């Protein structure tokens, strides 16, 4: 149980939070820290629960996408279309960042990624760069979109 809570706090919630950061940057909407925390915690807990119930990676991501769209619509006050496009794009971006991060670390360190399931400390170390990259990319997206002259 403790391990599960630790996993939610260290992995699921930060992961969910950066996905929302990306989604809000993509849709050029402002977000308060409180709103981000509520949405991040909700998605983080739900994602972890779903992951425990669904064995398939693909199904897991599909369910995660639907929950993200729903949360953006309800808590983020997005329109359905806006919620769908920003949620799917942000998840897609996050997943590719995750893939590149793991792949590059695997090449650089020569460590087999299956060890991540066994060594908690190693998993944290491998997880941190992808969160940092996602935050940087989110900031870049916000900067680029804010500089577009025809934004509303």
């Amino acid at each position, binding site marked *: 149980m403790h391990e599960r809570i630790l996993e939610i706090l260290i992995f699921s919630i930060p992961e969910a939070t950066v996905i929302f950061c990306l989604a809000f940057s993509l849709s050029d909407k402002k977000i308060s820290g409180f709103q981000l925390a509520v949405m991040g915690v909700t998605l983080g807990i739900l994602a972890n629960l779903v992951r425990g119930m*669904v*064995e*398939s*990676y*693909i*199904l*897991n*991501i599909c369910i995660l*996408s639907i929950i993200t769209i729903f949360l953006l619509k309800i808590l983020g006050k997005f329109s359905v*279309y806006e919620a*769908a*496009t920003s949620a*799917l*794009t942000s*998840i*897609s971006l996050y*997943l*590719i960042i*995750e*893939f590149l991060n*793991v*792949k590059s670390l695997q090449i650089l360190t020569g460590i*087999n*990624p*299956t060890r991540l*399931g066994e060594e908690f400390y190693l998993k944290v170390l491998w997880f941190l760069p992808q969160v940092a990259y996602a935050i940087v990319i989110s900031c870049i997206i916000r900067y680029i979109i804010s500089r577009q002259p025809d934004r509303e």
Partner: protein
Amino acid sequence: MKINIYKTSILFLIIQSLLIVLLLNNNYMKRFSFFQSSNSNFVDMAFGLLILVLNLIALVVVRYLYISGLEAERLKLTSLKHAHMVEQTRIYRQHHHDLKNHLTVVMGLLKLGKYPELNDYLESYLDTVNDALLKIETGLDEIDVLLSSKIQLAKNKDIRVELKNVASLRSSKKHVLDLVTILGNVLNNALEAVEDFDSPMRKVCISIQRDPLEYIFEISNPMLLSNISDADYFREGFSTKQEGRGQGLFIVKRLTERLDGNVSINCSDGIFKVTIEIPRHRLEEE
């Protein structure tokens, strides 16, 4: 409910991107037998079918996108034509409004027996009317709009444009854009070439003729004498203007030759004349 094709396409593109990333990650995890369900074959099959359906729908979306792109182009053209008509109507109304004043002056000059002044007055008035109420009817909306806008541009720069022998043109939709590019480039060159000259030399002549085999477009403008050979003008990057220019006539030649046509340049008696001959059957073929 009307579907917004642009929004649908954006959503499709995003879903496809997500699916690509999902597939990539899933394959990577499969290699380490990580996060795979016991019935992964069934999930893979369903996933494959979903991608197939999405790809088929994408074909329809792409087709709609293409059609709406064409429609947007047509609307843009109609809007240009409309703007031109509005401007013509405004000028017409203005002339109509001033007509009574002009008739009063004419009557006055007539009563005073000042016939030479009356003649001058009428000539200048008619020139103004002819200049303002220019109506171009080549038979191709795209060319009408192009010529109108270029003539308007010339007027703003105080350049006189003589438009003569406007033959009726016919062209298939697929070649109209090429024709607009050809004429647009040559006209731009001509207008640019004379804008630094003094008033009598600020003049461009446009002629559009048709013989049984070809359409012949001639655009001429005065030039200062030069020793540049005709072949040099068609060289890519050759320009008498600043660096980084000189694509215009090269593009004109390339497009004209693609239509089995011919471009020639004649520089004599201080006149720079570009003649473009395009076979009618090539321009009109569907």
